């Protein structure tokens, strides 16, 4: 598959998932698992730390600083579980 084909497919899957409400339901589950694992609190902690020494204080800068850390520290078991749910959805959609 070419990159543009993948992009088109991704956009389509995303559209269906959002319209279906499945996006919100999976996100809700992801939020609760991340909170239970301590990921959310660790990020909050880090944001507070960073903001303590930042001058001028900028939420935008904090967001940029935290984005890659946030993505790489998602616990593997959580990642696996959510990936399975997404795969299930995609499979259901394209089996029809």
């Amino acid at each position, binding site marked *: 598959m070419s990159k543009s084909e993948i992009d088109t497919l991704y956009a389509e899957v995303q559209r269906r998932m959002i319209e279906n409400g499945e996006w919100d339901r999976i996100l809700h589950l992801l939020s609760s698992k991340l*909170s239970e694992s301590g990921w959310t609190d660790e990020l909050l902690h880090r944001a507070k730390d960073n903001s303590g020494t930042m001058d001028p204080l900028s939420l935008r800068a904090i967001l940029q600083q935290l984005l890659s850390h946030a993505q790489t520290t998602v616990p593997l078991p959580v990642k696996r579980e959510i990936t399975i749910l997404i795969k299930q959805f995609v499979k259901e959609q394209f089996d029809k």
Partner: protein
Amino acid sequence: MSASPDSTHAALFGDENTLSTEAHPGATPSISSDVSENDTARCSHIASVFADPSAKAGITDKYRTVVAWYAQRTHDALHPAKRRKISSPTCNTCDQTLSRPFVCLHCSFAGCWLEGHILNHLTEAGHAFSADVKSGSVFCSECDDFIFDDTIDDLYLATVVSVEERNTKFQVADRGREPYQPWVLSEEESEALKDAITVPCQGRRGLLNLGQTCFLNVILQSFIHNPLLRNYFLSDRHNSRLCKHSDCTCCEMDNLFTEIYSPTNTPYGPTSFLATTWKVSAEMSGYAQQDAHEFFIAALNQIHGTCRGSTNISCNCIIHQTFAGQFQSDVTCEKCGNVTSTIDPMLDISLELRTKSGEAAGDNTLASCLRRYTKAEKLGAREYSCSKCTKASHEAVKRLSIRRLPPVLSFQFKRFEHKTSGKAAPQKIDAPIRIPVTINMAPYTTLAMSMTGKDAEAGVPGPDAMYEYDLFAVINHEGQMDNGHYTNFARFQDEWYRFDDDKYALDCLPLPYDLTFGRVTPSTLGDCLASNAYMCFYVKRHLDYKPYMKPTYRLARENDIVREQAMEREKEAARMKEVEDTLMAMV
């Protein structure tokens, strides 16, 4: 203080008239309705727009509409009533369906944040403000950052709460929730407050250790930082100068809050609280170290007992309004499927740290403790006999769940085991527990557990906010049972403080775990919160009120006043008669 009804959010995060964080003895600032006028951190661009009423309306109307739309949409997605498409706007630049829409507050543009589409629009169109519809955060293109504005914050909260109110399925006597109304000062109130001295809405003092009384201090700090108790006592609901009880713990609470909110911040010694506790609960007396949880329960009972209008059944005193919830225990007969349900009141939840077989559990988080607590367990053959089958002994399954969630959830981790065999001294279980800053209690409720199949897809009756709780205090215990020390963490707004008797300091809630490469390892911090947490307290994020009802303690107070006045009249009449009789006798 805050208006009634009020949401926990406003109580926790203060209203816009919050003054400085330090107590200023002798300061008499006036109540300005626009304190933020002189706040240089405020965005001047939005301030100038808001100065013009019609421009302000343009922005706020749009803001309110999009925030309400998104809140309703999220609710619908999580509680699907019918199979229907969720409205999903697309980005005006790249056409992708927006999972996290940012909208322009000046035109109909909506766009992606990460790819920069919304920001490009603001620059190209010369529009200043855009809002993240989920969090309500407003971005100002002139400031080139997200801004903080009281009007926006209030509007966000009011809008979100209003959507929650509309979507609350729980009803009392066929009536929905009473809508939140902000406090607007009446003429009388304005007049009364004109010359009032304002005090900061936060108070903080260390508590002196009076001889092994750290157990008392940590519980008192948890009361002081409890928004519902604080609001009750600061609004003079139990005035110790008018109370006629002796040895009244409710008066001690009133005195405690008076001391904490007084202009001094030197440590305070709660001597009369301790003395009253000894008088009322003999088992708590003496200078030995007591168990903080035991004291907690004793104190709750004492305060309840001395509260005006408290009753033994369905009490509505401040303690019950704050802490009282209900458990439900369901026993299912495996033979006939008959379910026997028992409902019990509770003021707190005590959680086991070990599995039934006595081993330490693998993953220790508050959520895993709650799952263990609400897990179905088989009852032994002789423990149960079904009323329906009328057979003596057979298999049954018992399950606990929370039927009613109180506004304040108190958890105790059962760290002290009393071993009946072997060592005489109780062993302390030091297993670390991860306590999250927020928790959603829906999965542990009776309602959630009773939903099966199709029902379960619709989720627990909403809104979600009814199940969301925020941590505000943690009590730690170091050492062994007999010679340990209690300290605590407590929060005001979003600042955490660590208290150690008379000493306290601004502190971060230390994280128990380092998240490195997805592995979970204990923190290297000396002060590890996780292994010491003994009790913790959460408060519901948004309070929900029974519609149009007067609390029984208020009714009781009104009846008391009527009765007292009648008694006064009788006494007066009797006295007059005595005087007359004496006069007559002299004649």
